[in-house]
């Protein structure tokens, strides 16, 4: 049983560019959340997708957008990248036990 998978593992982009990160939830999970984690900080909630719709959103600008597909996989898109967008981007799916199952993350570096 595969856990949460994310791609790519690492990514280097230039300021102003756009990036797309991908996530497949754990088998049987239909809800996907995205988090941004800066170095030395806890994960910050970006948004959550359920039934292909954005259900909740954190305090992130419209440059951050997402999508969920019928197979429950999800994408996170960030436009007009800023240096401050450099972080570990985590995808998580929800378990019946109430905890979040996190993927390994995508390390995004903006130069």
């Amino acid at each position: 049983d595969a856990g949460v998978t994310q791609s790519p593992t690492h990514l280097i982009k230039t300021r102003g560019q756009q990036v797309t990160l991908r996530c497949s939830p754990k088998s049987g999970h239909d809800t996907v959340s995205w988090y941004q984690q800066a170095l030395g900080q806890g994960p910050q909630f970006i948004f959550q997708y359920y039934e292909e719709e954005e259900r909740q959103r954190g305090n992130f600008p419209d440059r951050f957008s997402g999508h969920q597909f019928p197979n429950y996989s999800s994408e996170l898109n960030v436009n007009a990248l800023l240096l401050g967008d450099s972080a570990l981007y985590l995808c998580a799916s929800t378990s019946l036990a109430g905890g979040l199952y996190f993927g390994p993350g995508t390390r995004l570096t903006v130069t």
Partner: protein
Amino acid sequence: SQKIEQNSEALNIQEGKTATLTCNYTNYSPAYLQWYRQDPGRGPVFLLLIRENEKEKRKERLKVTFDTTLKQSLFHITASQPADSATYLCALYPYSSASKIIFGSGTRLSIRP
């Protein structure tokens, strides 16, 4: 303002001792609280969940307490081992925001042999 605070200083414990980590929160009404372990460069791993009407939860060498009056949770690792060295995150699930689990910044725990 709403805050979740964990020990900002790293915690260094001798192997075999009990490690105790603290999570304090203000201006939240959490439905439940969770603890996660995170190793460098990896995603957090869910450990335990405790609900607001539960005082204590145990899982093997782990114990979590939840005091809604003090607005505090304590996370204990008994008989600590060097393999327990990691960053531990607490997270709140507030009633007010159904999906937005809110994380503290974590406490780095080091267990020395």
